[in-house]
């Protein structure tokens, strides 16, 4: 039992190590200096307080996107629509942020709530279609991503601006930014969102593992038929699962809208955060705590990568390769497990 748990922890660790090693090989083969590359990466992620601030800022939406993917996953659903839910959450948060001027204690929670509601709505649709018509959520969520992108762009142009490409800046009363955090990190874009995402991780863990709702959601995720036999409302649980997943994703969007950018602009393409959330969830073993660690890793990789071109002449895309490899190795954990068992046997 505990040996099994150890393997579960070792697999992602090995995957990360393997990913980094193969990344180094790629650099070597392409004529770059892997040591310089990785040093630059490390420096760019944790080198001083500014970079640490930026890394935490990047980790914030990653945690939430990871939670969103994982929550659905744990309940038997694959939410590829985190990206779209994040976009509408972002839009809704900024909308509330620019539309009213209210005391902070009301305004900020209201903006976050709006984001959560928008994400929930965007999750509700695929959930409902799955429950009602048995349409596969993967396809619907992919489609919903594009709809989110275009609708959000249209709203930004016609409602939040006068045919412009971005909204006004949100009122400070809706902002997650703070002088304190910025001075602490030498004017990084760090904001209070990290606290929200850590709370969200605890919420997800508690909800899923400790409550009857979580019990139902997991049961339905594993076996709809048995859950139906046991008197659970399967359809309601499918919808609920997607809605909650959408709430996490929508709040991730609020982090961008109320913290990092303080506005919302027309997007030419996806932010990528939602898709990275899949990687985060996977590496984190779909567990709240694992997700936090995975988000820190990927956040550091993403932010640190920006230092690589100038400091070591290595293209930032190297980091995308490393991330892809890590996902790959986690997904192929069978191989790692096989090696681990082999090693264990020989050790005996």
């Amino acid at each position: 039992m505990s040996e099994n748990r150890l393997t579960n922890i070792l697999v992602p660790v090995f995957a990360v190590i393997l990913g980094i090693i193969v990344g180094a090989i790629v650099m070597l083969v392409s004529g770059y200096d892997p040591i310089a590359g990785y040093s630059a990466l490390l420096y760019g992620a944790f080198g001083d307080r500014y970079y640490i601030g930026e890394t935490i800022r990047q980790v914030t939406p990653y945690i939430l996107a990871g939670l969103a993917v994982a929550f659905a996953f744990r309940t038997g659903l694959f939410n590829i629509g985190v990206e779209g839910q994040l976009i509408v959450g972002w839009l809704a948060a900024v909308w509330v942020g620019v539309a009213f001027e209210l005391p902070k204690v009301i305004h900020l929670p209201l903006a976050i709530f709006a984001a959560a509601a928008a994400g929930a709505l965007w999750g509700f649709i695929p959930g409902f279609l799955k429950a009602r018509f048995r349409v596969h959520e993967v396809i619907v969520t992919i489609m919903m991503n594009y709809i989110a992108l275009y609708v959000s762009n249209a709203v930004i142009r016609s409602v939040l601006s006068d045919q412009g490409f971005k909204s006004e800046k949100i009122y400070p009363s809706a902002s997650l930014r703070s002088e304190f955090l910025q001075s602490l990190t030498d004017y990084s874009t760090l904001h209070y969102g990290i606290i929200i995402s850590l709370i969200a991780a605890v919420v997800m863990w508690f909800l899923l593992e400790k409550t009857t709702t979580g019990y139902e959601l997991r049961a339905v995720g594993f076996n709809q038929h048995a859950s139906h036999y046991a008197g659970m409302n399967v359809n309601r649980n499918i919808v609920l699962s997607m809605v909650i997943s959408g709430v996490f994703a929508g709040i991730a969007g609020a982090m961008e809208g109320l913290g990092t950018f303080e506005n919302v602009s027309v997007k030419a393409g996806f932010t990528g955060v939602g898709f990275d959330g899949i990687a985060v969830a996977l590496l984190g073993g779909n567990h709240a705590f694992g997700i936090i660690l995975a988000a820190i890793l990927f956040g550091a990789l993403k932010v640190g990568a920006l230092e690589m071109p100038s400091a070591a002449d290595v293209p930032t895309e190297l980091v995308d390769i490393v991330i892809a490899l890590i996902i790959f190795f986690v997904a192929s954990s069978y191989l790692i497990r096989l090696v681990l068992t082999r090693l264990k046997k020989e050790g005996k």
Partner: protein
Amino acid sequence: MLNILEIIIPSAIFFAAPLIFTALGGVFSERSGVVNIGLEGLMVIGAFTGVVFNLTFADQFGELTPWLAIVVAMVVASIFSLMHAVASISLRADQVVSGVAINFLALGLSLFLVKMWYGKGQTDQVQVGFDKIDIPILSKIPVLGPILFSNGYLPSYLAIVLAFVVWYVIYKTPFGLRLRAVGEHPMAADTMGINVTKMRYIAVMLSGALAGIGGSIYAIIISRDFSHATISGQGFMALAAMIFGKWHPLGAMGAALFFGFAQSLSIVGQAIPFLKNVPTVYLLILPYALTILALTGFIGRADAPKALGTPYVKGKR
């Protein structure tokens, strides 16, 4: 009205062609029981290879270059798809996740190489592309000729022909029967002496090959260079077309043509008086909304291959 069709239909076909190729690839892979959400990434590899080959060898091969580029893109993408095959068939990885990894890796790797080889974010422009053609004889048919058979690209028509070929292969040949059996009930196929692993490897590599073609013709005909934005969602559209088409080659082709039509309408639509006052956003989301509607409405019960997404482990009960 006819004039409008002459504008919309050819552009619908040209938008659809890369989707058709890729969706047919998806049909092979998923019919064998392997989910292939990595079609997007395989298209990226195809686009990248096609463009790079074209740029590098245009001087040697002249007019033949784009055709050779397609072939090379096909080969490279199918080799790349081996990663998905190894992970999801031999290493029993979650197929969706492995596909996501393929997508990340394809984009990361090809942009990395572009930066390394060209020292910038995108390649140069391809000089030798495909020619627009009017199909002899057919384009002379009154009314239909100008709409369907004029102003097109040869690869677009090949895509349509290929759909029929794939249909024949899947429904009329032993290979097709075995492929479908492997996707429906791999253990049954195994007991009949069919090598499930081999069949699935072939199917995934075929999907890589076809997605490679799809990506390369997209890049060579449409964008003419390769950058981060060249393939942005076409692979997912192809996946949707395959599902919309109920995992059937001709269905997939029909769905792809339909998406092409919707996309072409969203662009050309602004020139049509009737659609002029419709905000563009409606036309932009049309293909996606229609796909969702179609999935819920007309074809609510699209039966996926039964063993789709489950790795086959010999002797597992």
